[in-house]
């Protein structure tokens, strides 16, 4: 992002600093924080029955007449031009309907990249899609085939012959570092932060650590493959997609194909896992274009290999963390700098230094990220982008310092716990990380840990414990809308284009709406997953729940005004204004006089209305700029390392979370655990192996990229402080991504405690311990 953006954001923040907090969203804490009935209950997820019976239909499962099937062909070279292209054999193959290459693909523009300046942009890559003969990375889509069956399409794709004029490519991380770019900002934060002279402070410090940490690329590996079923119906376009961003995808496709917004409908009621990977990529665009050319509906489900080849994952990183501390362990310097990959045609800056800006007090700071430009599939956002790997570096460094000083690592963290945001000086909206540590340590039995590495053993196994902090910023998206329809029979329908990837979106918002409106959950239904509905927010940045909650709050307010107007002078409520009433017992009641109450049914009946329907958007999320808002966690791990094989078995893993109000303990625990399990993979097994010679991914299968399986996953303990955040809707903060943060460091620190070996290079595979 630009220098200009730094100025704008910093000016807004400064201006907001002068505005009294009570004028801003969250100025008065959400009354539902104190008044929960359905919220906080362990309701089972509402989509459970459809999913366990196999009846939930995902994007590739929508039946359609005259459907044809797509297969893609990927470049086997890294940079260059297509010198010879022969599609004759493919075209002649049985069942083939179309072979589409840059020669016959309709001419379209490029996608606007995801970014903070344009919240409707969804592009993960700004490269042209089948528009010319140029190849920019190994795995780029160079042709598509449509056929009557999948088998025919796959076979025909294998018959396309291509020769490339190969050009030199940049594929070595270490070589490309010299030409790295240093952007002015990372997301909405200034990139290069200098407070005091951190370099000098580290040199002078009584105690210091200064090391490099390396993390490899990762892939999301949602079990559902990326897929679309596309149909042109006259001049309108119907796209059944697996996407985390329904409304913006519809807009982007409309723009690309010269249609009006209303002409594109994206449906995605169920998404089989996203984790940042299910956005808008080349395949949707190819499928839409191909369907247009053949005048038939098209299903394009990527093969698992295609997912690796063309859907980018988390960038590799090399991070330097240096910490200086005085004799008491107070930090006088934190340095967190490094390199990650971000090709100029990519969108994601992998913000790994964000955690180090908020976790600790220090007298001086130096923070900066550099982008390495490689010719590879553009990286993108993956669960806790930045924090997942940034916490690995900083939280290992803190553990190393604690060991060196002979201080318990929890105590060292406590001594440097900030009262206010360490860089901006803004107040935290709520922060109880120290409490989370205390409760976590007690639950876990941290006092049984021996500080001396390698001191505990059991036969061939060395046993160790480790801990680390996790952190993830709060986000609420502006502009999330919801429609709220109250019917005369006292039932309510909520609708918006929100997405469900397994977070429990509808379940928790139904609980929310029930409490907000004074109704039982049975009275509420929630339609979503359709761009024809009012635009909700995207599922990203752990922001969907509070974004929708704010929209429902706003809609409820609007509805209350509307109902009071309809109630009129014959109502017991006559003369009351919105601020005098509350919604209870399926109706409206006077706050001051509980006897004054009229039911929704009675109001609508008297007004002869079948229903009242309102659409509203949540207030602008100014609380994010006025306060420092973060979810945080303390992660504890106990594991065994075999002296014979180097094998690591995780015996216990506990997460103690401080994330505001927990809205549904059952689905929230699943979110936390899911993140932590991905953290186990990050620590021990996961690695996208790019061949440094050509940037081609070498392990493009689920057999070669190792995600944790049942036997790798112990029973995980999850606890939380549950302290509400007074500034956010429902007192809640995000919980979808915090779970993965801190886990890799807790595991690496436990490995050190078990073996005395400090592995700063993920994943911690067996060979590194022998």
């Amino acid at each position, binding site marked *: 992002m630009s220098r200009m953006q730094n100025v704008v954001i910093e000016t807004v923040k400064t201006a907001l600093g002068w505005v009294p907090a009570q004028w801003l969203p969250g100025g008065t804490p959400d009354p539902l924080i104190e008044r929960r009935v359905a919220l906080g209950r362990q309701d089972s*997820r509402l989509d459970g029955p459809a999913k*366990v019976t*196999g009846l939930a239909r995902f994007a590739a499962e929508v039946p359609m007449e005259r459907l044809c099937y797509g297969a893609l062909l990927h470049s086997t070279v890294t940079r260059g031009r297509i010198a010879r292209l022969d599609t004759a054999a493919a075209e002649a193959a049985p069942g083939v309907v179309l072979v589409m290459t840059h020669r016959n693909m309709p001419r379209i523009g490029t996608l606007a990249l995801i970014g903070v300046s344009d919240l409707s942009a969804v592009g993960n890559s700004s490269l042209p899609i089948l528009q010319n003969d140029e190849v920019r990375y190994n795995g780029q889509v160079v042709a598509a085939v449509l056929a009557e069956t999948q088998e025919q399409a796959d076979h025909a794709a294998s018959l396309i012959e291509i020769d490339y004029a190969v050009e030199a490519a940049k594929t070595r991380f270490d070589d490309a570092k010299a030409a790295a770019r240093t952007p002015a900002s990372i997301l909405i934060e200034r990139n290069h932060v200098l407070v005091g002279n951190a370099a000098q402070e580290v040199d002078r410090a009584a105690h210091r650590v200064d090391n490099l940490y390396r993390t490899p690329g990762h892939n999301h590996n949602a079990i559902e493959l990326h897929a679309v079923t596309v149909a042109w119906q006259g001049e309108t376009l119907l796209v059944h997609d697996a996407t985390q961003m329904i409304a913006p995808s519809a807009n982007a496709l409309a723009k690309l194909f010269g249609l009006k917004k209303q002409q594109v409908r994206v449906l995605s009621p169920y998404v089989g896992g996203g984790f940042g990977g299910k956005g808008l990529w080349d395949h949707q665009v190819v499928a839409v274009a191909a369907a247009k050319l053949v005048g038939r509906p098209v299903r394009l489900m990527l093969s698992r290999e295609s997912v690796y080849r063309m859907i980018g994952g988390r960038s590799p990183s090399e991070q330097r963390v240096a910490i200086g501390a005085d004799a008491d362990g107070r930090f006088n310097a934190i340095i967190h700098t490094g390199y990650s990959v971000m090709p100029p045609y990519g969108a994601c800056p992998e913000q790994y230094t964000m955690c180090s800006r908020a976790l600790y007090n220090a007298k001086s700071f130096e923070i900066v990220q550099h982008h390495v430009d490689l010719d590879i599939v553009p990286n993108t956002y993956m669960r806790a982008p930045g924090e997942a790997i940034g916490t690995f570096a900083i939280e290992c460094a803190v553990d190393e310092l604690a060991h060196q000083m002979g201080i318990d690592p929890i105590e060292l963290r406590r001594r440097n716990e900030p009262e206010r945001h360490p860089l901006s000086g803004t107040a935290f909206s709520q922060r109880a990380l120290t409490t989370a540590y205390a409760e976590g340590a007690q639950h876990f039995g941290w006092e049984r840990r021996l500080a001396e590495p390698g001191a505990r053993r059991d036969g061939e196994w060395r046993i160790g414990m480790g801990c680390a902090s996790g952190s993830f910023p709060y986000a609420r998206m502006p502009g999330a809308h919801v429609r709220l329809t109250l019917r005369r029979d006292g039932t309510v329908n909520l609708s918006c284009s929100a997405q469900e990837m397994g977070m429990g979106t509808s379940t928790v918002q139904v609980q929310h709406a029930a409490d907000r409106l004074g109704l039982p959950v049975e009275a509420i239904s929630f339609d979503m997953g359709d761009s024809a509905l009012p635009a909700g927010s995207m599922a990203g940045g752990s922001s969907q729940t509070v974004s929708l909650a704010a929209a429902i709050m706003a809609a409820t307010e609007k509805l209350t005004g509307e109902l009071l107007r309809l109630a009129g002078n014959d109502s017991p409520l006559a003369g009351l204004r919105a601020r005098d009433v509350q919604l209870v017992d399926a109706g409206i009641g006077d706050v001051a006089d509980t006897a004054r109450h009229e039911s929704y049914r009675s109001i609508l009946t008297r007004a002869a209305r079948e229903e009242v329907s309102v659409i509203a958007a949540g207030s602008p999320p100014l609380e994010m700029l006025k306060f420092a808002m973060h979810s945080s966690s303390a992660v504890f791990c106990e594991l065994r390392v075999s002296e014979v094989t180097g094998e690591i078995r995780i015996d216990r893993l506990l997460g103690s979370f401080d994330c505001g109000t927990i809205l549904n303990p059952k689905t929230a625990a699943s979110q936390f655990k*899911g993140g932590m399990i991905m953290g186990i993979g990050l620590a021990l097994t996961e690695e996208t192996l790019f061949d440094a010679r050509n940037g081609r991914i070498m392990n493009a299968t689920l057999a070669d990229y190792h995600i944790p399986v049942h036997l790798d996953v112990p029973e995980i303990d999850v606890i939380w402080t549950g302290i509400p955040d007074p500034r956010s809707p429902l007192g809640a903060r995000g919980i979808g991504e915090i779970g993965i943060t801190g886990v890799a460091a807790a595991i690496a620190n436990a490995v050190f405690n078990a073996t005395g070996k400090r592995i700063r290079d993920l994943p911690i595979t067996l060979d590194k311990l022998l």
Partner: protein
Amino acid sequence: MAIRINGAEIAVPDDARVSLLGLLREQLHLTGTKVGCNQGACGACTVLIDGERVLSCLTLAVQADERSVTTIEGLSGAGSHKLQDAFIEHDGLQCGYCTPGQICAADAMLREIAAGVPSYITADLAAPARLTREEVRERMSGNLCRCGAHNGIVDAILQVAAERTA
């Protein structure tokens, strides 16, 4: 030539390349059986053939000729299967995409343990296999779940197993 799928007689497809998975999903619209890799690495496509679990992506449809296939849609018959209820109760699912495969695999896996079939981690190969959390975790390891519903899945399976032996 015919395959019995959830009780119905289905003709074997003409194209010998069609996998059992492809037959189920694309020709019969039995889309409860999922696809995560098409190469035997994820377990999402697990179905039962004559009561035993198989990966339908690695099974050609012709191989199922004269056999009886049960998918998630057929598992519950009219009502719901105990495992299905237990998965909901223990939140053994998030996105739900691996879920049909997990449930089909669990159904067969419990019969394998009951029949005394040992696993990679069974210590005593001479004695009948015991139903422990470890055994369930090992035996379910061919069914990947990226959402991380593992704990709930194992809890659900153990609960159903306990009810059966009770």
